């Protein structure tokens, strides 16, 4: 039994045929994670007790002849910005070094109700701000495919955990590409669902109007199964959608004939040669599946980066205000006055990237600047969304690269935030428009670095993304 080779369907069959118990699976997953973790630093914490308790509950249900749920016994890793009751949740920040939440995120609650076994919490960029996982207060994560390279970010730990075979699936969060980009860097599948599809209750907010929880897995089918278990309206999140949750497995028919796939010109500029080459192969494979490729234009794409960094920093500056040393956070011990408590706690507690974004966000919301920045960015956001809505009148899916380049070396872009921000240039547009985006592996570069193909769908278009992604995967997309 090798965790890295298991699929969700495989686990369900094995459990029900009593070839393995959930407890054995959990123990094996925990053992592998413990063994592998020094190589990647993917996990910040292994929740052994919680995992075994959940596994035993699955075994007990099976023993009673009850249905233990569609994710029964599936070892899942959870990004450390998603709260877990009684299990430390740090968000990769020194400020929350000792924060033990008294409640579970809705997504976690629903996964466990479906029988999943939460193994532990995965490393991430501090408060999900970053594209390389180097902004974690608890050290960077190494890419299992190339240990001297970053796994991408901010859900780097979740992507690495799945890629190194210690978890069958993982939860990440995606604000501007934080699931899709690390999935592509590590060679796994990652989905940023439609905004509102999965409850944000319990996801520590970075940019509330953009943040989403989504799955990472080794294949599209598993990603769909994880989404199935956690999607749907949640009374505790006012922005969660009432839209009914379709049967995702049924959508994956294995064929993609006749699907109209839009290829936006703007997304094929500035790619590294390797990435461009993989994209060429992906286009050919899509055509061979019977998809109708259409060149389209999304004219406001070039405004996406400034627009995104205004919206997300503005919201972040407000969302991060609560880490002030008064309650659950770390507090600077030298502080003598209230002003010192704030400035020392936040000054020493936050890493450079968080501080940069807090300052940017504070600035763009300031009196006299609001209209020029925040309001204008909101208007641009509407234009970007309209670009997509117009495109989806002609096509069913839009296909783009996930990132202009594959995984880069640790430290390579650390001193150049603008270069770092470019990693997300192709993912933030769907984020701004609230659209779902699926990252599927699309072969490797000559150096063996994974490349990802992004499939963007209309709002609540997850079924078509799964259908095309699954067909692409079955046709050998991952080994192009």
């Amino acid at each position, binding site marked *: 039994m090798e965790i890295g080779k298991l699929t969700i369907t495989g686990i369900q069959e094995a459990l029900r045929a009593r070839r393995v118990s959930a407890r054995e699976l959990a123990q094996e997953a925990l053992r592998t994670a413990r063994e592998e973790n020094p190589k990647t630093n993917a996990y910040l914490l292994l929740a052994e007790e919680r995992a075994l308790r959940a596994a035993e509950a699955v075994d007990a249900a099976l023993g009673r002849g009850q249905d233990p749920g569609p994710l029964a016994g599936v070892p899942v890793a959870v990004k450390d910005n*998603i*709260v877990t009751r009684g299990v430390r*949740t740090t*968000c990769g920040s020194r400020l*929350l070094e000792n*924060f033990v*939440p*008294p*409640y579970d*995120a809705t997504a976690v609650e629903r996964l466990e109700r479906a029988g999943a076994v939460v193994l532990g919490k995965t490393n991430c960029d501090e408060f999900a701000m970053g594209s390389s996982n180097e902004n974690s207060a608890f050290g960077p994560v190494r890419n299992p495919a190339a240990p001297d390279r970053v796994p991408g970010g901010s859900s780097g730990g979740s992507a690495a955990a799945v890629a190194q075979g210690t978890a069958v699936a993982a939860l990440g969060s995606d604000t501007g590409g934080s699931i899709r980009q690390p999935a592509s860097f590590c060679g796994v599948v990652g989905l940023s669902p439609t905004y509102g599809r999965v409850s*944000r*209750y*319990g*996801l*520590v*907010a970075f*940019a*509330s*109007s953009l943040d989403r929880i989504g799955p990472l897995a080794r294949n599209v089918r598993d990603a769909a199964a994880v989404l199935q278990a956690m999607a749907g309206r949640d*009374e*505790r*999140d*006012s*922005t969660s959608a009432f839209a009914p949750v379709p049967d995702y497995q049924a959508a994956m028919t294995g064929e993609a004939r006749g699907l109209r796939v839009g290829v936006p010109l703007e997304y094929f500029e500035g790619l590294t040669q390797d990435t461009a080459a993989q994209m060429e192969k992906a286009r050919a494979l899509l055509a061979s599946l019977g998809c109708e490729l259409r060149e389209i234009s999304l004219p406001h794409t070039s405004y996406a980066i400034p627009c995104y960094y205004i919206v997300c920093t*503005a*919201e972040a*500056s*407000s969302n*991060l*205000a*609560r880490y*002030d040393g*008064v*309650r*659950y956070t770390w507090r600077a011990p030298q502080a003598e006055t*209230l002003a010192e408590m*704030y400035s020392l706690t936040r000054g020493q507690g936050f890493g450079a990237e968080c501080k940069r974004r807090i300052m940017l966000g*504070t600035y763009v*919301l*300031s*009196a006299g600047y*609001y209209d020029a920045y*925040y309001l204008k960015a909101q208007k641009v956001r509407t234009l970007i969304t309209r670009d997509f809505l117009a495109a989806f009148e002609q096509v069913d899916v839009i296909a783009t690269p996930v990132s202009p380049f594959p995984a880069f070396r640790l430290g390579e872009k650390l001193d150049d935030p603008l270069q770092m921000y470019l990693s997300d240039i192709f993912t933030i547009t769907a984020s701004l428009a609230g659209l779902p985006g699926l990252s599927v592996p699309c072969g490797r570069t000559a150096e063996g670095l994974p490349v990802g193909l992004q499939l963007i769908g209309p709002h609540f278009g997850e079924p078509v993304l799964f259908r095309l992604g699954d067909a692409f995967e079955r046709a050998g997309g991952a080994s192009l």
Partner: protein
Amino acid sequence: MSTAAPRLATPEELELYEPVIGLEVHVQLGTRTKIFCGCPNEFGAAPNTNVCPVCLGMPGALPVLNRAAVELGIRAALALHCEVRRRSVFARKNYFYPDLPKGYQISQYDQPLAEHGWVEIQTPAGPKRIGVHRLHLEDDAGKSSHEGYRDSDRFSYVDLNRTGSPLAEIVSEPDLRSPDEAYEYLTELKLAMQFAGVSNCDMEKGNLRCDANVSVRRRGAAEFGTKVEIKNLNSFRFLRQALYFEIARQVALVESGGRVVQETRLYDPNLDETFSMRSKEEAHDYRYFPEPDLLPLEVGEAWLESIRSSMPAMPAELRRRFVSDYGLREYDAQVLTASRELADYFEGVVHACGDARAAANWVTGDLAALLNAQSLDIALCPVPPERLGELITLVQKGELTGKLAKEILPKMFESREGARAIMEREGLRALSDTGELERIIDQVIAANPKQLEQYRGGKTSVMQFFVGQVMKATRGQANPAAVSELLRRKL
């Protein structure tokens, strides 16, 4: 800080200068639970016990709007004759303070719940409408205590029970022209909130809080002077005192060639003066932006109409009705609309006895005195309105004299019995039987020959003596007019 003793602006100064005042009033809505979570919205629990991840601002927690808070907000808006917007938007008001756990308040900014209302106040020159600029919903902060603990020199204590209590902020237009008008406005507003069932408006519990914007200008000037915000006006008395002080301060400043600077001042009731808290430059930049965790608030026509149709009559309307329909004096109408409970009680009595003036006399007279003596609120009155109505009816029918009724009411108050039960137990009733009364009168005359002689000798004032004796003999059960009449015949 000012060192001069507080003083009032002189009448001469006020002839030259006109104060311009606007009030910002925070009303705590009387919902069962808080505005964005399910914690109890109550006063007086042990510190930090009515809290949950949402109102503690814990990472990952999200607000969910309480429908009941919106409903009370709409009731408040309707009570103030506001237009309720079909769509309003919550916004974050960002600032740091230890009792503000999220680091922002969820409020409403450019799209408030309601706008364009008014409150009618009475002024010496007649009724005057004060504009209500806007009414918006927001969550309350917690409470910081900087004093009273052993280690208060180094630490402050924070209680977050109040965090997330629903508030309606009501901003008036700068239509008020004197501290008395401000006082009247706040009084009317409080009454309207109580009548509409929005809030108890208990200032001691912080249900009602008030800030004021004050400026002065030369009479006749078209433009307003520079305004100063005064905070912490947490009683009606403080509001009036602080305004008097601040107006005098501004007038004196301008008269001596100085200029008022825009700032926020705090009223100190101990010194009876205001002092500068922060200047315009130090003012917060709240960096408002639309709250991304909440959808815009849509108020449907049907909901609005159902709330509108459940609104009770407002005090001003009731007063008009009491005067025109019941023939009450303005003063009594004013007294009887001091609270919704009192007005309801009064109407209950009128309903039971059909005599509004008698009802008004009893409610504002003997009943009020009894309630006062025991510091009881009308809501806790042991005599229900139907029973007071019955008592009044008994007097109307002549079964009781007014004097007897006045003796019976305190007994009803004590024993919680009806008037008839007490009459029967104590044998109290009006002596309407002329035969029996005549017998008693004869006895009284026979027992007082000396006075009879005086009367017959022309000293008619002795009549009062005989009436008194008869009343005493009948233990007040006789009708004094009938006694006089009979005596006159017999003497």
